[in-house]
């Protein structure tokens, strides 16, 4: 078998791709004649034959530096239908010394091959058509799938948005609850003070000292409310940057906020620093954890009418943990709620008093600071424990 350079054949083929011969009874082109007459035509030497036009071939010859002599042109005819689908042309039969005309044997062989070639071509055609049909169907299916996926994604996004909206609403509700919780104290102080002002005024006992004290107290309460509001706003804005702070400082500034309250409620506080503990996080948030715990203790004191009220803070390192203990002597937490105390909307207080959000938020804050808040009863009170690993 002759090996021909495939690349060359491709290039040649591409160059001639645009050639189209018109099929007409009058055409004298060899390929067209073979098709129109449905017969095999053999030419011994095209440069020696006047009957057919070979201008095309001669032009190609010239361009590629070749000389076509002998031709065998066979129409490709379908066996059953008799339809001619094309023409196959063979050029220059090779011999040992050059080229020779095609022989009778060649005719027979090519005649045999032509119907087979026709079959192969038609088969490939229909195969390709089927393939393109399958491809089309696949494309349609793909499109369908794409649409379905798009729809699913759209639905999911909608669901996500709804969930996000819901959680935003829940968080907002929590914030409002928490602010209400934090504000109930200063508001009651203010209303008490206002009532006191009226009575003192009626008694005509308002002097400079009284006004100073009154305004200081009110300013203090308002400052507390403002800072609460600010801190809650920042609590729900997570982009506030974390930094290192000392728990003892957070305790001190929290106690400052409740100082008046605690004096009024006769609550003593004690801070025992065995080891200073520093945390990475947002100090304001951590203050809320403390505030929530001690406010709960205060409410419990009042509910139980406890004598010798005491809240103790203790900071120490225990094995691999940093620990903050906040203990009170307010009678402890009832067993039926102690397991649920950090869940949202669980409260030990009477109807309308607790919101059940304080400790839930405290736990949330503890976790944000890489720790865990736990509670147990000890002696005559509750011990809240914030524990974080080194």
């Amino acid at each position, binding site marked *: *078998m002759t090996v021909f*350079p495939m690349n*060359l054949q491709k290039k*040649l083929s591409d160059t001639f791709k645009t050639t189209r*011969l018109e099929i007409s009874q009058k055409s004298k082109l060899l390929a067209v004649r073979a098709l129109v007459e449905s017969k095999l035509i053999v030419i011994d030497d095209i440069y020696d034959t006047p009957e057919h036009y070979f201008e095309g071939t001669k032009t190609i010859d010239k361009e590629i530096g070749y000389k076509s002599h002998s031709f065998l042109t066979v129409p490709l005819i379908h066996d059953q239908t008799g339809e001619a689908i094309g023409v*196959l042309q063979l*050029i220059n039969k090779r011999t040992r010394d050059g080229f020779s005309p095609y022989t009778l044997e060649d005719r027979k062989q090519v005649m045999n091959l032509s119907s*087979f070639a026709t079959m192969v*071509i038609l088969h490939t055609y229909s195969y*390709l058509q089927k393939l393109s049909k399958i491809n089309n169907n696949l494309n349609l299916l793909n499109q369908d799938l794409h649409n379905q996926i798009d729809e699913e994604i759209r639905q999911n996004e909608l669901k996500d948005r709804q969930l996000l909206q819901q959680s935003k609403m829940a968080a907002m509700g929590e914030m409002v609850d928490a602010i209400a919780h934090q504000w109930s104290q200063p508001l009651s102080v203010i209303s008490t003070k206002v009532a006191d002002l009226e009575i003192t005024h009626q008694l005509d006992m308002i002097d400079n000292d009284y006004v100073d004290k009154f305004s200081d107290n009110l300013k203090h309460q308002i400052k507390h409310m403002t800072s609460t509001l600010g801190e809650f706003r920042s609590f729900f804005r997570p982009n506030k940057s974390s930094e290192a702070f000392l728990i003892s400082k957070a305790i001190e500034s929290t106690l400052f906020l409740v100082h008046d309250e605690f004096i009024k409620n006769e609550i003593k506080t004690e801070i025992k620093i065995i080891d200073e503990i520093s945390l990475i996080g947002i100090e304001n948030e951590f203050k809320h954890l403390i505030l929530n715990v001690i406010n709960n203790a205060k409410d419990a004191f009042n509910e139980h009418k406890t004598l010798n009220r005491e809240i103790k803070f203790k900071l120490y390192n225990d094995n691999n943990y940093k620990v903050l203990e906040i203990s009170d002597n307010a009678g402890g937490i009832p067993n039926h709620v102690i397991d649920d105390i950090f869940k949202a909307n669980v409260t030990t207080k009477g109807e309308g008093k607790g919101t059940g959000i304080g400790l839930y938020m405290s736990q949330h804050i503890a976790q944000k600071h890489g720790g865990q808040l736990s509670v147990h009863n000890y002696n005559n009170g509750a011990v809240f424990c914030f524990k974080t690993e080194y």
Partner: protein
Amino acid sequence: MKLEDDYIHYYDMEIQENSSLEEMLESLLFYVRSITRSDAGTIYLKEANTLKFHIYQNDSVSDESAKKTF
């Protein structure tokens, strides 16, 4: 062995993987040329009222002259 079988054998070996019409025609022409010891060959296929040129093969024309010409 009949020629058709011979071609089918060749077709199986060489062409099976090629799905395009052109590849198939290339193999067909190459095969017929080798049977008849033809130096060159072409295939036209009927398309509407024309014969459309599809391929041209020529063993004598080297890569070099082809590059020069086209």
